[in-house]
């Protein structure tokens, strides 16, 4: 198995693990972290699968680079929303999840 395919498999494992964490945890920061790890797994699959046995492929690399930029700004915005929510409600989860 080539290193690139290994990246894709690791990406698949990361996506599955982070989906579990995303569904189980109710703390919004944990959810955000899980979502970020899921994004990382997707990037690994995108680049690893495209390059497996074919050498470097600039197109998925550029797509992933764009994805990283968007992911960073979305994460920063989510953290701002989280802090606002905490200041507003003193809660670290949404009301639907708090009830459990």
């Amino acid at each position, binding site marked *: 198995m080539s290193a690139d395919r290994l990246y894709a498999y690791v990406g698949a494992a990361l996506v599955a693990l982070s989906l579990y964490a995303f569904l189980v945890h109710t703390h919004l920061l944990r959810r955000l972290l899980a979502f970020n790890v899921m994004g990382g797994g997707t990037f690994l699959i995108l680049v690893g699968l495209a390059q497996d046995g074919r050498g470097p492929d600039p197109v998925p690399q550029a797509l992933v*680079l764009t994805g990283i*930029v968007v992911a960073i700004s979305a994460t920063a915005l989510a953290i701002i929303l989280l802090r606002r929510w905490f200041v507003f409600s003193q809660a670290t989860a949404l009301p639907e999840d708090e009830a459990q």
Partner: protein
Amino acid sequence: MKQRLGRQLAAGAVSVSLGAALWHAIGVRPTPLVSLPALVSDAIPASGVSHPVTAVLLNFRSYDTLLEIAVLMTAAVVALALREEQTTRTDTPASARVRYVVLDTLVWRLVPLLVLVAGYLLWIGSKRPGGAFQAGSVLAGAAVLLRLSGFAITPVDHRLVSRIAMTLGMVIFLCVAIGTALAGRELLDYPVAWSGALILVIESALTISIGVVLFSLFDNAPQQPRGLSR
């Protein structure tokens, strides 16, 4: 407790199925109809840069990058809309804070170096790994360092200047897009003779915008609430 266990089991089942589906999909990957790396390397001479990733980002798929800076700008605007009133900020004014000789010396040595690194990353992007985002994030890192160590960042703290810097990348990119369309070409289809220069101009504007947007996302975050127990 019982409900929690059920939730964990359900989440486990969903995650394992998704993982298995992905695993299977990676195993049976179909052969592509076209070879993208070959297409890219054929078109590189006409792109104005020699690094394939930069060529894809700023020329062949520049539409993606245009939308990327639009997303960044939107995030910054939302953050600005959500920020607390400036009067509630509890930051010590730069003039009133205690000076630490080691910290100040380190920051004054590091920040020019970081700006230099950002410039290098921007410039080298046409030939080697590097480019606007890498350079912009180094700039943002330098600004965060300045802010955390209590220095005023005059240009960024100035309201109008920071707004202009945030939109600069988007504006320049749009001007180039509209310019190419007005000149009778496709949107963002640069003339070959100009493409290198146009890419450098766009990337420089993007670097400034990305740096200021990332820093403002950090800077506009609501204050950490006091006495956070959980």
